[in-house]
C-alpha cells in the first residue's frame, strides 16, 4: 500500500500544527464559534448531539495493521473504546474532547493518517473498491488512481470553497462495488481495444434530497490527462454551481439544469485550456512510483485448497460463513474475507478497540498486513490463504466478528441517526436492529439471498437508502419518528434510485413492513432472481398492494 514520503508527511504534520494553533485561538477566545466552525470542519471535527465527533479519513478504504492499531489506541485513550466505520470509508469517534483533538491528529500523523477534508465544501475522501488488488475482474488497481486523486485534491487552493461538498469514487472493475454512479464524480477505469487504460468519468450522481444517477461526461480520458480532466470539471462546477440554495448546490443539480450535453461541452472546453497549460499532465515517473506501492504482495504459488471441503463438511457454522463471507480471489489458493460489522441486533459499522486490534493482528499474520474498509461498513481481509480460513474464522468467531451475512438482509447499512447525529430527524440504528433480529435465522436469510437494506435517519442519505434494494428513510412527523420505505434502488453498475412505496410507517411497524415485502418477493420470484430482479420485473404495484392491503 501507499507510504508517505517526506513531502506527504510534511503536509500532514504542518496541518496538525496549524490546527493546534487554531484550537488554541478558539480556547482563548481569539476565534469565536462562527469563525472556528469552518476551520474545525475542514479537519473533520463536528459538534454532534452528545459531544464532538471526529471523522478520520481512510483513503480509498485501505489500512495497514499499524494504522488500525493506532485507530484502536485513539479509541481507548481519547474516546470510549470504540469507533464507527462509515459509508464513506471513514472512521468516526463519537466522544473526543476539543482540547485533545490536536494530539489525536498528531497521533494519526505518526501513522500517515489525517482528518483533512472529511468535512466542508471541498473534495472529500476518495473512495474505491474494497476488493481492489484482489478481485479477478479488475483491469488495474483503482487505488493507484485514487491516491493520485487524493494528492491532487488535498488542500487544492482553488477548490476548497466549492458550492457544496464533493465526493469522488473510483472503480476498475465492471462489477461496481464502490457505488460510483451516485457520486459527484465516479470514475470507471477500463482498457481500450489496444489494452491502454482509459478513464470514463461519470458526473452528477448523488443521493441526498434530490437523488440522481451520474451521466457519462468524459469518455476514454487518457491516464496522463486524468487530473487535467478532473480540474476542468471542478472549475466548471466552482464557477457555475449554484450558491443561492444549499439544497441545489451539488454538481448533480448543475448537470441536471444545464443537461449532460451542455456539461460535456463546457468541461471539454475547459479541459482543452487546462491541458494547454500542461502543468497537470501526470508524468509516467509518478504513475510508476505510485503503482510500485500497490504492487501485488508476495503471493505463494498455491492451488485451491483441498482441505477446505473437508473442513466445511465438519463444521456447519464455518461452512456457512465461508459460503457467505468469503469471495473468490484472483490468485489460486487465496480468498477475500469480509468481516461483517453487522452482528445480529448490533450497531452497523461499530467496532470496539479490542476488535480493531484483533483484526489488525489477523491482517498482519494472515493477509499481508492490510485491511480494507468497505462502503458497506464492513472490514475486508483481501489476501487470505484458503488454508488459513478455518483458523481465521475461529479467531473472528471468538471475538464476535464471524457473523455470516455479507450481502444478506441483515448486512444493513445504517447511518448513526438521531442516536448521535445533529442533523438526523429519526433514529436509524434501532430500526436496523429490529430488522436484523427479525431475520436472524441464517437459513431464512440465505433463502432470501442478496438483499441490500439501507437506512438513513434524514434526507441527507448517509445511510444510502436511495440505493437500497429496500431503503428506509427516517422522518419526523410532529416530533414522532416515522419511516418511509423505498424499493428498487441499487448502487452497483446498474445503478437506480429507489421508488417511494407509500405512506411512512411507525417505528414499531418497519420490521413487519420489510417482512411483508420479503414474503411477497419469495412468492413472486422466478428461479435465480434476487429481490431487486423480481422488483424490476414486476414493478412496484404488487408490493404496494401487499404492503398497504391490511391498512
Amino acid at each position, binding site marked *: 500500500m501507499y507510504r508517505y514520503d517526506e513531502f506527504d508527511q510534511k503536509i500532514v504534520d504542518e496541518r496538525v500544527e496549524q490546527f493546534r494553533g487554531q484550537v488554541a485561538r*478558539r480556547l482563548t477566545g481569539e476565534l469565536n464559534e462562527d469563525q472556528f466552525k469552518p476551520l474545525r470542519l475542514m479537519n473533520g471535527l463536528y*459538534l454532534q*448531539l*452528545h*459531544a*464532538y465527533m471526529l471523522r478520520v479519513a481512510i483513503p480509498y478504504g485501505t489500512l495497514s495493521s499499524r494504522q488500525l492499531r493506532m485507530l484502536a489506541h485513539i479509541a481507548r485513550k481519547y474516546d470510549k473504546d470504540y469507533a464507527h466505520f462509515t459509508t464513506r470509508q471513514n472512521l468516526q469517534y463519537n466522544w473526543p474532547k476539543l482540547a485533545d483533538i490536536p494530539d489525536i491528529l498528531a497521533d494519526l500523523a505518526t501513522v500517515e493518517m489525517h482528518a483533512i477534508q472529511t468535512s466542508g465544501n471541498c473534495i472529500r475522501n476518495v473512495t474505491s473498491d474494497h476488493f481492489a488488488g484482489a478481485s479477478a475482474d479488475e483491469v488495474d488497481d483503482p487505488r493507484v488512481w485514487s491516491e493520485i486523486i487524493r494528492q491532487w485534491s488535498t488542500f487544492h487552493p482553488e477548490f476548497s470553497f466549492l458550492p457544496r461538498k464533493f465526493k469522488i469514487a473510483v472503480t476498475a472493475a465492471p462489477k461496481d462495488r464502490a457505488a460510483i454512479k451516485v457520486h459527484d464524480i465516479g470514475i470507471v477505469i477500463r482498457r481500450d481495444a489496444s489494452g491502454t487504460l482509459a478513464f470514463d468519468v461519470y458526473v452528477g450522481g448523488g443521493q441526498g434530497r434530490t437523488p440522481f444517477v451520474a451521466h457519462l461526461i468524459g469518455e476514454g480520458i487518457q491516464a496522463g490527462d486524468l487530473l487535467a480532466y478532473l480540474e476542468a470539471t471542478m472549475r466548471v462546477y466552482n464557477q457555475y454551481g449554484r450558491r443561492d440554495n444549499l439544497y441545489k448546490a451539488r454538481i448533480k443539480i448543475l448537470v441536471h439544469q444545464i443537461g449532460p450535453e451542455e456539461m460535456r461541452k463546457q468541461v471539454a472546453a475547459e479541459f482543452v485550456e487546462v491541458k494547454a497549460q500542461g502543468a497537470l499532465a501526470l508524468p509516467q515517473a509518478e504513475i510508476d512510483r505510485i503503482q510500485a506501492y500497490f504492487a501485488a504482495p508476495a503471493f505463494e504459488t498455491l492451488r485451491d485448497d483441498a482441505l477446505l471441503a473437508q473442513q466445511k463438511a465438519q463444521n456447519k457454522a464455518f461452512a456457512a460463513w465461508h459460503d457467505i463471507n468469503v469471495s473468490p480471489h484472483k490468485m489460486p489458493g487465496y480468498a477475500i474475507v469480509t468481516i461483517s460489522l453487522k452482528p445480529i441486533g448490533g450497531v452497523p459499522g461499530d467496532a470496539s478497540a479490542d476488535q480493531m486490534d484483533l483484526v489488525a493482528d489477523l491482517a498482519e499474520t494472515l493477509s499481508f498486513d492490510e485491511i480494507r474498509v468497505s462502503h458497506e461498513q464492513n472490514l475486508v481481509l483481501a489476501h487470505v490463504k484458503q488454508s488459513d480460513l478455518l483458523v481465521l474464522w475461529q479467531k473472528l468467531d471468538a471475538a464476535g466478528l464471524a457473523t455470516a451475512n455479507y450481502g444478506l438482509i441483515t448486512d444493513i447499512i445504517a447511518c448513526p441517526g438521531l442516536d448521535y447525529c445533529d442533523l438526523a430527524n429519526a433514529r436509524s*440504528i434501532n430500526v436496523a436492529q429490529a430488522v436484523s433480529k427479525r431475520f436472524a435465522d441464517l437459513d431464512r436469510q440465505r433463502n432470501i439471498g442478496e438483499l441490500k437494506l439501507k437506512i438513513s435517519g434524514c434526507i441527507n442519505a448517509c445511510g444510502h437508502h436511495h440505493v437500497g434494494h429496500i431503503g428506509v428513510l427516517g422522518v419526523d412527523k410532529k416530533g*414522532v419518528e416515522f419511516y418511509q420505505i423505498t424499493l428498487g434502488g441499487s448502487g452497483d453498475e446498474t445503478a437506480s434510485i429507489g421508488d417511494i412505496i407509500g405512506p411512512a410507517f411507525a417505528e414499531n411497524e418497519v420490521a413487519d413492513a420489510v417482512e411483508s415485502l420479503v414474503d411477497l418477493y419469495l412468492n413472486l420470484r422466478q428461479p435465480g432472481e434476487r429481490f431487486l430482479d423480481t422488483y424490476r420485473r414486476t414493478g412496484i404495484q404488487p408490493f404496494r398492494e401487499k404492503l398497504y392491503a391490511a391498512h
Partner: protein
Amino acid sequence: MPQVLTANRLLDGEVVYLASDGAWVEELASAAVIATKAEGEAALVTGIEAERNQKIVHAYLFEVIDTGVPLRPVKQREVIRAAGPTVRSDLGKQARS
C-alpha cells in the same frame, strides 16, 4: 409550554443545561424550568454571554413537559441528548446514574 436552555460545553462538547443559580449543569433534572417568554429571553442572554466567555457553544431553548419529576423533553432529540444513545445504555449521561 415550559422550556429549558441547553448548549454543549466548549471544552468537551458535553450537553449542559442552565440551572437557576446560573451554573451550567450536566443533568436535565437540575435545569431551571423557564415558564415565561421574558425568562426565556433572559436565559438566552445568559447563553450568549457564556458563549462569549468560551464556556459553551450554541445555546438554545427547548420545550419540556413539566409535570413534575422527571422533567421530560417534548422532542425525541432532546430526550436522547439528556440521556445518551438509545442503542448504547452504557454511554452518555444515562450510564452515570
